[in-house]
């Protein structure tokens, strides 16, 4: 595992520079952690990934998907890629190929949430960070409450392997998160229709004061 050199000149905890893949953004939006990610990461956005996220439905070209709206609002908090970008990796789609090539060139992790892209990254020696890890880290670092962490994990339960959800839940418990009750993954998920749209913004406030370190 590579630990990239620190490069954030801000005061306070330095953020980790990482390259965004489309699969991470849509899952982070679904888990309601997309905005929180800016507390942890200096996100570099490859142009092809930006195109994929902002692309409209060909049948409804004037509409905008909710994850794209959030991206548009937060885009100026993220970094542009170098110009020119590294040459895309062959035999992959534009977004994945750009994200992996850029992460490799910069020597930083890629934010990804799809197992095939994650496997390709691993084969190329690129560190990956997925949404479940971000949820655990946000709780561990004191950015979100335990209740919020359970809720966010539950929001991606349907799209995440049970073993990974279980490990994330174990990590949350080990970090001191109290038993999540109805917010804990598995508690009510079986009675929730799969595919129900996760509604970011619903429920209790997620933020809690950052404890002294």
């Amino acid at each position, binding site marked *: *595992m590579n*630990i990239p050199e*620190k490069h954030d000149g801000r005061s306070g*905890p330095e953020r*980790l520079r990482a390259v965004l893949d*489309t*699969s991470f*953004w*849509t*899952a982070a939006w*679904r888990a309601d952690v997309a905005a929180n990610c800016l507390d*942890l990461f200096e996100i570099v956005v490859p142009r092809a990934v930006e195109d*994929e*996220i902002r*692309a*409209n*439905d*060909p*049948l409804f070209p004037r509409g905008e*998907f909710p*994850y794209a709206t959030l991206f548009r609002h937060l885009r100026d908090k993220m970094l542009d890629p170098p110009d020119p970008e590294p040459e895309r990796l062959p035999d*992959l*789609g*534009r*977004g*994945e190929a750009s994200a992996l090539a850029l992460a490799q060139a910069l020597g930083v*992790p890629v934010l990804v*949430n*799809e*197992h*095939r*892209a*994650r496997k390709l990254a*691993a084969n190329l020696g690129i*560190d990956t*960070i*997925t*949404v*479940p*890890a971000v949820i*655990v*880290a946000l709780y*561990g670092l004191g950015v979100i409450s335990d209740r919020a962490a359970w809720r966010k994990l539950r929001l*991606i339960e*349907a*799209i*995440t*392997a049970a*073993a*990974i959800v*279980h*490990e994330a839940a*174990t*990590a949350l*418990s*080990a*970090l001191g998160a109290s038993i999540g009750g109805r917010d804990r993954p598995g508690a009510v998920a079986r009675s929730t229709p*799969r595919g129900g*749209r996760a509604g970011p913004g619903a429920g209790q406030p997620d933020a809690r004061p950052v404890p002294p*370190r």
Partner: protein
Amino acid sequence: MQTKSIRLTREEARDLEELVEETGEVEAAVLKRAALRGIREERIERGVLAYLRGESTSRAAAIANLPRARFLDLLAEKGVTLLQGPSTLGEELSLLARWFGDARLEAVSGRLQESPGDLADEHS
């Protein structure tokens, strides 16, 4: 513009007539919309199947004629597991713990990598 013709059974034609009457639109408009919706659903279905059979999300999204982001979101709506095992959570948390200098997170990530079962037993 191209003209396509289709043959309908008597029952299908009656169904169409009822729909046209219900909507108050001309028959051609109703038929066109139904055809476009049908093509869209067919493409999405084929895209999802392609992904489940091992195609990349980019290729499957192209089959579905959707932007990759929207296709990923659609897979999520359908409850398709996008993040499958094996888990790399321990390694990911270790990277984050070391970057942010958080000893507690580092300890948990280490336990996850060494013996996730034991950690789960302790906190179940």
